[in-house]
């Protein structure tokens, strides 16, 4: 308490500039007077009395300093003094200051930009209270190589009552529903969730309420929670929206609540996070299949909140025990060979898992750029030493302590770095809207990226850390001057400057090595991207457009006008017939969402039960199974290899047929003829209440492999079925021809809605766009790393230019003497260039070693190119050497053109 009081008073003295000096002067005068009087009394002569009094007092100046130190805070006072001095130094050499600050602004600005992305994604993936308690529960059947097979309702109930979790909720991964009743039928994205979903996330509604967590309605509870966005868009932010009826897929629901603005649902894509509305359901009654233990709800996700204080590992232990006891209890539902397991994944992992590697790569790349900028500025600081050597030597000669000198030099470099950091942050802040447009939309939490206080703190912390680390070394080197020699032979190369010159060369070699690493990374990414772009996708996206519509799926199937494939076929055939009459259309086909090449978010994968091989659903491998109309293959240019494609005569009442791709043939019928083989696919994921065992499906044809799932992956097994045999609620209309992109969407909407006015038509895009979008994250990382590499190369070039110029400057006397003695000018040129080449060779050697490590680490991000790709490594090395030579050429020319007479006279 007393300490604090003392500190506050001293601080206020410092701030107000109040000095106790006058008071001390008076007190000293008073002291002298008293002492003199006493001395007089003791019988001294007046001059002797005064002399003795002064002697007794001691050194007045020392007293004053002590007194002053007590009165204010010398540390801060010195700091302010140093700052003032540093500012003056910066202003005195504006060119140097500008380059240094600009370099740091570049490094710190770029780092901060990437950090703001990472801050929103990797560091804060879950905007919910106590996010570390949230987990995703994933069921696997490792015995049959199936992952994420989904959970059944009885299993979910077991989990709920297991005591491991505070609560566990089932949720869909997002689907579509038609909102009718407004001017234009709308397709909205929704999630069906168990009523305790929001209780698991611990987020409450801003208006009204969320679902009652204990609601036990087996099917839909006919309550709907709106997102803030939908509420504002469609309901004009009406505060009386609660209780209002909305018609979704022809069923009537009542609004019970509106989620707060900024609430983002969990999930890994923007689509999943930007849900329009939530429907509460028990997943156990109509329209869901009966809650049997073996009827797993695929495409459903289970998330849960762990009991407080329970670690994931501990919870996993409890869960394993539960799984073992369930297996014993229900041996028929959990056959031993499937090896059913349940694992817990931190929910944060599932949100950012897909882009983690890319972001880490970017952060690493930008970190290298930052390092290079720091090295560059350190280099500049060292270069300035030679100019300030005399000043520092004089200060030391006058008795300045080494620590005091270092402190002052450090203050200067810190000021430089901090100004750079602030400038970088300011530029970033001003350009944030422009920069955000560069970020691909598929990045999770795109909307959460913001330039916040935390980001500012990060920028300042990085600047301060960099300033300390990279300012300390030059400061130490500078303060270790050899006084006599510096003062005596200022202007010529001195012993101290050799140490500095070594330091500079080390710095330049580091810089070159770091930029080589970055360039190799960029080169490899560029080649991967190039290869991916040039890859034969196996389908022809040229002049193809996809437009989506959505058929309603009412909860009571008897109300569904498109309940059977036959009923749906009438509509689809008519849509196709009318589409073909539209201007420019050559071909038309329909398919479900999975049939949209590269555009689907979550492919429907069904268990494949091969006749005579698998006997039970939950033992089967899963396979991607698009549903398409017969024209689909020709429209996309996917060739038939063997057998036939299903045709107009394959309808609901005729035997079920399917076409597989070569990958499926290779995988599931190796060395056999798949034609005529029979398979069964499990109940549709939509969970229509169709309990009858699906009939056998015969494979009638094999088509060529097409990269419709991912451009990077050639052989994903697929089985195609006819939309006329197996209906689909999601319908993509594919059109090929000379299409008028601006008009076609409206034309298709008109045609579709003249058939059924309740159908929404949305999301028209060309397949070329879809293909390009599917590469957006790769393109983004490639572009960013390439940008960073270019920056690094530029900085390294500047660094080597500066160092060679410096060397030439130091040696100009030597060069002049050589020239005067008759050295050939070309030899001088060669000598300097050799210097540059030596640095480049050192940098390249170190850099190649580093690049090998880095490329090995980023192997997962590459496609079609080896991490040790020789042409990339060689090309990058050549570029780097070329830049180094070019950067040394200018000072080399200067050295060559040196006039020996003027130079020697000037010395």
């Amino acid at each position, binding site marked *: 308490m*007393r300490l604090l*009081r*003392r500190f506050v008073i001293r601080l206020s003295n410092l701030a107000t500039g109040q000095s106790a000096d006058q008071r001390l002067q008076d*007190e000293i005068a*008073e002291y002298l007077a*008293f002492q003199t009087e006493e001395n007089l009394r003791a019988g001294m002569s007046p001059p002797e009395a005064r002399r003795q009094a002064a002697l007794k007092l001691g*050194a007045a100046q020392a007293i004053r300093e*002590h007194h002053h130190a007590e*009165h204010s805070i010398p540390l801060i006072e010195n700091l302010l003094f140093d700052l003032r001095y540093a500012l003056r130094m910066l202003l005195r050499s504006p060119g140097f200051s500008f380059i240094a600050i600009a370099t740091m602004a570049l490094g710190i600005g770029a780092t901060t930009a990437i950090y703001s992305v990472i801050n929103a994604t990797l560091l804060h993936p879950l905007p919910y209270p106590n996010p570390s308690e949230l987990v995703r529960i994933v069921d696997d059947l490792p015995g049959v190589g199936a992952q994420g097979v989904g959970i059944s309702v009885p299993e979910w109930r077991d989990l709920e009552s297991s005591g491991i979790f505070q609560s566990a909720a089932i949720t869909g991964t997002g689907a579509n529903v038609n909102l009718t009743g407004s001017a234009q039928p709308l397709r909205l994205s929704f999630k069906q969730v168990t009523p305790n979903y929001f209780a698991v996330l611990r987020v409450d509604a801003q208006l009204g309420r969320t679902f009652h967590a204990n609601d036990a309605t087996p099917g839909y509870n006919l309550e709907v929670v709106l997102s803030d966005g939908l509420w504002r868009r469609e309901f004009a932010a009406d505060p009386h929206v609660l209780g209002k009826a909305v018609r979704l897929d022809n069923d009537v629901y009542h609004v019970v609540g509106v989620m707060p603005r900024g609430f983002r649902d969990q999930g890994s894509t923007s689509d999943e996070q930007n849900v329009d509305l939530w429907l509460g359901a028990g997943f156990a009654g109509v329209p869901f299949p009966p809650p049997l233990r073996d009827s797993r709800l695929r495409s459903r996700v289970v998330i849960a909140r762990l009991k407080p204080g329970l670690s994931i590992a501990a919870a996993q232990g409890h869960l394993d025990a539960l799984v073992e006891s369930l297996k014993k209890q229900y041996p028929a539902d959990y056959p031993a060979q499937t090896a059913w397991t349940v694992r817990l994944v931190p929910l944060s992992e599932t949100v950012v898992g897909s882009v983690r590697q890319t972001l880490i790569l970017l952060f690493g790349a930008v970190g290298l750029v930052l390092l290079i900028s720091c090295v560059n500025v350190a280099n500049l600081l060292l270069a300035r030493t030679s100019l300030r050597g005399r000043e520092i030597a004089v200060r030391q000669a006058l008795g300045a302590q080494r620590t005091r000198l270092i402190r002052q030099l450090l203050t200067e470099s810190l000021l430089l770095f901090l100004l750079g950091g602030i400038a970088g942050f300011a530029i970033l802040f001003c350009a944030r809207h422009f920069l955000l447009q560069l970020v691909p939309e598929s990045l999770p939490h795109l909307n959460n990226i913001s330039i916040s206080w935390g980001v500012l703190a990060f920028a300042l912390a990085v600047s301060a850390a960099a300033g300390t680390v990279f300012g300390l070394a030059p400061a130490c080197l500078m303060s270790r001057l050899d006084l006599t020699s510096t003062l005596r032979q200022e202007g010529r190369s001195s012993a101290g400057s050799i140490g500095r010159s070594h330091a500079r060369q080390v710095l330049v070699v580091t810089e070159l090595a770091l930029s080589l690493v970055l360039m190799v990374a960029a080169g490899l990414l560029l080649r991967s991207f190039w290869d991916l772009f040039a890859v034969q996708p196996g389908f022809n996206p040229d002049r193809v457009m996809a437009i989506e519509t959505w058929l309603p799926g009412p909860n009571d199937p008897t109300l569904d006008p498109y309940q059977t494939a036959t009923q749906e076929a009438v509509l689809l055939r008519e849509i196709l017939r009318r589409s073909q009459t539209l201007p420019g259309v050559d071909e038309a086909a329909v398919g479900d969402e999975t049939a949209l090449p590269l555009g689907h978010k979550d492919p429907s994968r069904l268990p494949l039960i091969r006749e005579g091989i698998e006997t039970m659903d939950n033992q089967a491998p899963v396979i991607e199974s698009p549903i398409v109309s017969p024209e689909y293959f020709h429209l996309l240019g996917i060739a038939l290899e063997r057998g036939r494609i299903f045709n107009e005569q394959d309808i609901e009442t005729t035997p079920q047929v399917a076409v597989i791709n070569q990958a499926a043939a290779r995988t599931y019928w190796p060395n056999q003829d798949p034609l005529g083989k029979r398979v069964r696919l499990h109940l549709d994921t939509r969970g229509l209440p169709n309990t009858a065992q699906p009939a056998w499906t015969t494979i009638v044809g094999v088509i060529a492999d097409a990269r419709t799932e991912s451009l990077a992956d050639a052989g994903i097994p697929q089985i195609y079925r006819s939309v006329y045999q197996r209906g689909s609620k999601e319908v993509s209309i594919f059109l090929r021809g000379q299409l008028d992109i601006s008009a076609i969407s409206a034309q298709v909407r008109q045609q579709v809605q003249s058939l059924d006015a309740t159908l929404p038509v949305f999301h028209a895009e060309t397949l070329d766009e879809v293909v390009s979008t599917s590469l957006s994250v790769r393109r983004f990382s490639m572009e960013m790393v390439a940008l960073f590499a270019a920056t690094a190369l530029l900085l390294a070039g500047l660094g080597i230019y500066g160092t060679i110029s410096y060397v030439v400057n130091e040696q100009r006397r030597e060069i002049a003497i050589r020239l005067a003695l008759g050295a050939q000018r070309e030899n001088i040129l060669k000598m300097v260039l050799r210097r540059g080449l030596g640095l480049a060779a050192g940098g390249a050697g170190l850099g190649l070693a580093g690049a090998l490590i880095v490329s090995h680490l980023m192997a997962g991000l590459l496609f079609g190119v080896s991490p040790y790709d020789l042409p990339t490594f060689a090309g990058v090395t050549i570029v780097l050497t070329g830049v180094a030579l070019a950067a040394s050429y200018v000072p080399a020319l200067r050295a060559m053109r040196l006039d020996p007479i003027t130079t020697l006279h000037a010395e």
Partner: protein
Amino acid sequence: MKEKPDVLQGTLALMVLKTLDVLGPLHGWGIARRIEQISGDLLAVNQGTLYPLLLKLEHEGSVASEWGASENNRRARFYRLTAAGRKQLRAETRDWEQTAAIIARFFKVKAEDLS
């Protein structure tokens, strides 16, 4: 001539407080003189330490100071003990006595006492 030892670090504050407590308000020279007298001229008070110490005690609130007139009508700055200073003096006296007692016990100790 043997140098007079300076006041032990940390004890000067206690001496100043005690002096002010016993003798009432005093000016800087008076405090120094009194401490030297009380010590039987065995101690020398270093002015370079005394004035900063007085300032520190004032910042801490243990003493207060104001200009006044000395006994022979000379202008001087007088320091006096505040209530907080009195409290501090009591606490430090207690501490010091305790320390002294402990040290005294160590001086008195003999080998047979511990066997």
